[in-house]
């Protein structure tokens, strides 16, 4: 048990030393998002005029589904795919994130293409309206808008360096606020670990 607790602590310390992924760029022109189109069959969707920031390690196209299909994403400059990635099926909601190999330099005027096969499930493309000249294209057909796309990169600040900021923000979104909330959460976690340990030592000897 002591070894397990040590392992958990070490793993938690490693996670905290790690810098979380941050948003490096989004193409969203408006804070709100609308349904651009939806697909219920094999689809290849392409959107030109994107900017791929340097060091991008993941791209998040705003696709929504209940049980999403396997998705392949390509970032194409000219005729060449400069970054590509794939994600398995079963993703849900809007949490689709496709990992790609990072580029050293930013590239402008990139076309982002997303392709997948679905038979029944409806996949929604969420974004914003745009003029036809800059609109995205799905299976060769122009759409009434553009897909919202977010570009992610590893952050420069570790979780540890953000702990005070996180502790401050945990107090927001409540009427009763104060540092006691963080203290209470820490006490509950300590109590949880202590009680589990007591129960294991007492009952499994």
């Amino acid at each position, binding site marked *: 048990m002591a070894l397990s607790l040590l392992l958990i602590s070490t793993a938690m310390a490693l996670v905290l030393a790690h810098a979380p992924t941050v948003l490096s760029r989004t193409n969203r022109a408006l804070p709100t998002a609308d349904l651009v189109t939806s697909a219920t069959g094999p689809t290849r969707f392409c959107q030109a005029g994107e900017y791929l920031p340097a060091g991008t390690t993941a791209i998040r196209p705003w696709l929504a589904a209940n049980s999403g299909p396997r998705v392949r994403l390509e970032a194409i400059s000219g005729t060449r795919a400069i970054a590509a990635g794939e994600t398995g099926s079963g993703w849900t909601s809007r949490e689709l994130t496709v990992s790609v190999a990072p580029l050293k330099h930013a590239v402008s005027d990139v076309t982002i293409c997303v392709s997948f096969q679905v038979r029944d499930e409806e996949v929604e493309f969420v974004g914003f309206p745009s003029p036809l000249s800059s609109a995205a294209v799905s299976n060769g057909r122009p759409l009434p808008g553009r897909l919202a796309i977010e570009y992610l990169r590893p952050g420069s600040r570790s979780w540890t360096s*953000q702990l005070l900021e996180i502790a401050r923000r945990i107090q*927001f979104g409540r009427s009763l606020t104060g540092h006691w909330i963080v203290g209470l959460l820490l006490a509950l976690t300590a109590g*949880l670990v202590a*009680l589990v340990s007591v129960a294991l030592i007492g009952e499994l000897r």
Partner: protein
Amino acid sequence: MRARAARLLGRAPKAAWLCAAIACINAVSWSILTPAFQVPDEPDHFAYVKQLAETGTRPTSSISHLAPEIEWTLRADEHYQVRQQPQHTALASEALQEQFKAVTSATVGVSHGSPTAGVATGQPPLYYALEAVPYLLTRHSPIPDRLALMRLCSTLFAAITAMFVFMFIREALPAEPWAWTVGGLAVAVAPLLGFVSGAVNPEGMLYAVAAVTFYLLARAFRRGLTTRLAVTIGVTVGIGLVTKLNYAGLLPGILLGLAIASVRVARTSRTAALWRFAVAVGIGLSPAGLVVLANAFAREPLLGAFHGALALDKGSLLDELNYAWQLYLPHLPGTVDDFPGLFPARQIWFNGYVGLYGWLDTTFPLWVYNFALLPAVAIALLCARALFESRAALRSRLAELVVYATMSAGVLWMIGAASYGYFPGVDAYFSEVRYFLPMLALFGVLLALAARGAGRRWGPVAGALIVMLFLAHDLFSQALEIGRYYG
């Protein structure tokens, strides 16, 4: 009755109380760290309670525009930007917090109920009636305070769940007391139990009532169905049926269990057997019977919201059964593949259990789901070994096993039937693992068996490792939630 309940709980071992305390603490943690309304359908459940507490009537419309003061709170909390947008964290600045406090303080004193309660509208009222108590106690406070106290009350159901999972394991596997603790503790720290029970959601109560039901049936099999036990089972079933519609999934198995337990009583007295069966079924089904009668008088579908939820008038039963089968298992030769390119058991259910929080928008990195297969396979192998070694005992308890299997199949079929109503537009509409949690008692038994599968010498060590694995899962899930909303 109260004295009997006190005697019953007083006989619970100390470890059962520890499991209850741990589950409650865990759910309280989840209730604090999860931002207001960032749990699936929580605004709708809150609206139901508001309507019941302020007007004494149930909501009548399932449209998603809730009472204005709830909508103000949701907007001030940036709910619609945060929900399903993992890159958008919860409130991030003092200015937004001040604005939030100003808006939510305006919700004090507005008490016109909420005639609309979204997806909660068709649900039975018991849980909401209980939650009306903390709601009314804080009715002079802003909505977030009311929600916080309601969430705290819900955490008590996590405690009841963990305690009765422990008690069920004690009845089902009486030989090795240390294994009861393994199953009870692992369930107590299960993150999904904390996440759901730490929110305003009738499922927290459903898990508790289901765990009590499993325990009572196990008691009937081990000690015989007495009249007292028949009454208790009847009351529990009645409570379950007015807690959440999903409880009905357990019903075929419960009826089968009662029938088998009564047949055993009939070996000594036929009259007693019939009486006890009738008492349990009569008490248990009376709330549902009243609803059917009311619907008959109102010339509405007899099964009410249940009718639509199960897609009873859509397609052939064979197609529906085929769909429900494939929702969990590989499709059979000669049948149409309803989930091409998707293996639901792994991608929906296993990954969903490993980590899918918030409005299904909070996930671990992909490697975590792959890594989680290792301990899952190890636990499954240990469990299989324990089952193989106790095959003789299993044969002698086949009828009991069939009852638990029927209860599980009922729950699974309900999820499948309800999802089938949305198919093919949506492959698996109700694809959330929280719907499996009424079967937590069986999950606890499987974990206890896995520990026993390591043998007499190494069993307790394996058990401790299983509990620590579940604790780690819980702590990292909480860290994930904190990172997602406040990072």
